[in-house]
């Protein structure tokens, strides 16, 4: 895992800027029209909350990009089309975007069925589909126009396993996971890594996203007699499980994946999430400049609201899109090539992000080991809970 290194960071952003400057002369026709990105994501329907979080992250990044002079004098803007995470609508949106010559790059969709149903259309039309929350292992296999900055679960889960097993010393783990493509893939990577580190997996339980009641599941967990609970959950279900675990009398250490990292997790979980350990990609006191800029900018723009993981993904994605457009200009093929060239883009999640051209993903997510103390996420001090 990459560690925070200020020098390489500065160098990286300098390189990106220089590259941008060099390309700008040829690639940009003088125009006052903004450069347009297409976003396909849920604004209504069951996943609507994630679409609104994307918007917050995008808008903050765009404010910063415009303030810094835009893309060589031109503004960057996005057109958000609501797909409800429904594949039927995401394919129509895909046709809409590919046939609109103003759109140079597409971001999204949120769920795998909606995103991957649209992939063939983007691939055939030669418009990059930049799926920044698409952790499905097959997403970037849809074609060479599919790129993703989603943290690969092959990358993230061993970090969580290391936190739980090596650092917290847990030996018998119960894994509760969302039974979606993301949760299932994550679970398998986690289980594999945890075993490698010497832990035993005593029970795994997959639950559907709409589930609210976990009491009976937790009795199963209790009977398996684990010394730690692993939650591969989003913040709302993670908070529910933590609350109900305490209600049914489970006092074991709880360790959760980074997707619960949200102020909502604290709000919804209340006292029950106290002492929950979370492996995350960044944390509020993180001294990295891109993190500080992100958090202070976010709080300022949204009245003191703390950003969460999905805000950060969207913020990073927009910054990456800007870096790519700086190199590739407004030509779709050149933008596809720019993904192979873009280097060391400052990123909240990765520190600096560079694509692995073979997998079209980014490796080397940052790692922070947090714990909830007094209703706040804090860096874990190494003390047992």
């Amino acid at each position, binding site marked *: 895992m990459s560690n925070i290194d200020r020098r390489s960071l500065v160098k990286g952003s300098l390189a990106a800027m220089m590259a941008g400057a060099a390309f700008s002369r040829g690639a940009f026709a003088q125009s006052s029209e903004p450069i347009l990105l297409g976003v396909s994501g849920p604004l209504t329907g069951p996943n609507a909350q994630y679409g609104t979080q994307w918007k917050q992250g995008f808008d903050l990044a765009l404010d910063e990009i415009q303030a810094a002079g835009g893309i060589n004098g031109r503004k960057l803007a996005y057109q958000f089309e609501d797909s409800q995470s429904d*594949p039927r*609508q995401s394919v129509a949106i895909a046709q809409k975007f590919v046939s609109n010559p103003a759109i140079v790059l597409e971001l999204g969709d949120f769920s795998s069925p909606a995103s991957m149903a649209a992939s063939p259309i983007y691939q055939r039309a030669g418009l990059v589909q930049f799926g920044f929350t698409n952790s499905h292992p097959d997403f970037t296999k849809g074609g060479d126009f599919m790129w993703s900055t989603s943290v690969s679960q092959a990358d993230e889960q061993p970090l969580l396993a290391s936190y739980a097993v090596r650092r917290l010393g847990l030996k018998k783990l119960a894994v*509760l996971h969302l039974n979606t493509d993301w949760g299932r893939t994550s679970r398998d990577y986690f289980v594999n890594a945890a075993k490698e580190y010497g832990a035993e997996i005593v029970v795994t339980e997959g639950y559907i996203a709409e*589930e609210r009641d976990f009491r009976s599941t937790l009795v199963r967990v209790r009977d398996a007699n684990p010394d730690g609970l692993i939650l591969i959950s989003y913040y709302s279900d993670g908070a529910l499980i933590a609350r109900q675990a305490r209600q049914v009398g489970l006092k074991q250490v709880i360790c959760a994946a980074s997707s619960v990292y949200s102020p909502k997790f604290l709000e919804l979980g209340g006292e029950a999430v106290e002492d929950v350990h979370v492996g995350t990609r960044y944390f509020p006191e993180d001294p990295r400049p891109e993190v500080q800029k992100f958090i202070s900018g976010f709080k300022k723009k949204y009245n003191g609201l703390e950003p969460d993981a999905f805000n950060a993904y969207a913020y990073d994605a927009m910054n990456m899109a800007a870096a790519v457009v700086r190199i590739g200009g407004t030509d779709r093929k050149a933008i596809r090539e720019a993904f192979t060239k873009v280097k060391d883009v400052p990123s909240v999640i990765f520190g600096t992000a560079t694509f692995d051209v073979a997998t079209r993903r980014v490796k080397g997510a940052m790692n922070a080991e947090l714990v909830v103390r007094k209703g706040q996420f804090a860096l874990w001090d190494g003390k047992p809970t």
Partner: protein
Amino acid sequence: MPSWSFARASSRSGTASRPDPTAGAGAPAAFLSTRGSSVSSWLDYTINGLIVGNVYALVAVGLALIFGVSRLINFAQGSIYLVGAYIGWVAVVQLHTPLPLTIIVVAAAAAIVGLIIERFGLRPLQNSVRIAPLLATIGISFVLDQLVMLTFSPNPRALPSQLPDVRFQVGGGTIGPLDLLIAGVGLTSALLLFVFLRYSKLGWAVRAASQDRDAAMQMGVDVNRVNQAVFGIAAALGGVSGMLVGMYYNQIDTAMSLQATLKGVVAEVVGGAGNVPGAVIGSLLLGLVESYGVAVFGTSYRNLFAFLLLVVVLVLRPNGLFASARQAPPEPLTGTFIAPSRPVRIPRWALAVAAAIFAILPFFPVSFYVLQTLINAWLLGMLALSLTLVAGTMGQVSLGHAALLAIGAYTSALLSLTLNVPVGLAVIGGGLMSAALGTLLISPSFRLRGHYVSIATLAIGEIVSLVILNWESVTRGPIGISGIPPLSLFGYDLISPSSIYWFSFVVMAVLALLQGRLLTSHLGRSFRAIRDDDIAARAYGLSLNRYKSLAFIFGGFAAGVSGGIAAHLYSYINHETFNTQQSILALTVVILGGLGNVVGAIVGAVALVGLPEVFRIAAEYRILIYGIVLLLLVRFRPQGLLGTI
């Protein structure tokens, strides 16, 4: 436990750090034998089942009350529950009201919402076809859910409990005062309603109206007032339950509405539709079955047991577990459920011209976006043809039709991927599998009538989806199937939007022509005879089950082909691709177009795929507008745009 995905993934990439295939060691079967649960665990499972059953009871009682009087499954009940939860949030978090006041505020506000729904949404429809109010409640639930989402944003919120945080040790776990309050509210309201219905004058009027509306009116019962009272009470109860459940989980969000309705409907029907005390017992039973299901097989099988319970109860005791033997049949004997109307006559030449225009459309400079939207409409049109046949012509209103899509899609995808069957044949294979499996699955519910068919098909749809999620060795579970080859015909790939457009248009047109031919044949007349009066039809020697099977075989084929084409179009499917919303959408299309009406199904599909696209400029408001348009259509054309055939 087969773990297909990794075997496949590693064979492709060959990287070293892949998880080993034994990662799925938490297989339910393994736990069944190796991990004996102690007696105290079973006590805990029982307690937990009762606790969650308690929660379901609150919704089920409201549904039962409304069903008892109006013979209507109120799909808006979950939305009222949602509204109640958010009003509770405003009261608790913003106004800091004490609990008793909060309950009164929520009950009053929700009751007002209920009265508005009754007065403006449902009362204008009381003399129209029986199916119209059902569609209206679906439209109302869209509108209410969207209003809440727009007002409060879709982010989940915490709804703190206002009761002291004391926990009582029961078994291995604890229960809190909220558990007791929820149980108290559920039981008290059921008891009060029981007393009200049995001993008060208005209660008698309610029961009289539920047994025979017209007779009650002749006896001087003000049926509208009865309906008002019922909707007010049910809505107040729904609102309070939403608030209490929100406090119970310390979490409210806009997605809670549909789940609440689904579980409430299951509990209510298990207890006997319209039977208030039965709804409470049905809810507790549902909670117990789910809890024991989790105990024995694992969490991912939980809802499977809920819906299996429903199907078993429906098949063995269609009036619910607690119906008395003398109870009158809950549905009318003859087909007033789907009233015939005069269909709009469209001249043949007009249809031919319309078909010709759509056929040559790709030659004109229309954007790929328009073509893709129409492809979606043709695919939905095939599903609607299928549903309009079984629901409209045959009278079996199915709420689980997305399952047929899923069966067709998975069959076609797996045939072409694993057996290298050419895509054209694989799609036909998907249609055949859907016809066979769909008919087999639905056959136990052939003896049901009216709403019960809808509920049974709803359950079967959910069961199919859960089986797809859990049967990993075949369906690849939640990981889904990716890399499905594109459509092709005689060795030519159909990947350009125009060629996919023509392909789906031609397939739909052929299916539509066949179905039109069928309707005018002897077979079509037999179908309608069964729909209109199944006793008379039987007296004339028609075998009901055989004809129902024939309708489902034909309908299953059309839906399966639609699903198969969609799978190859999307290249990736998983258990979420064909969800309950798709079933509800299909039914909306069919009712909108006119039940049994072939042209209507296609017109409805174009309208319901097109409208949300047209409203795209309205961004977040588009589903709200869509819901309002739907309500207006139901209000002014309850027999559908083109009328029932």
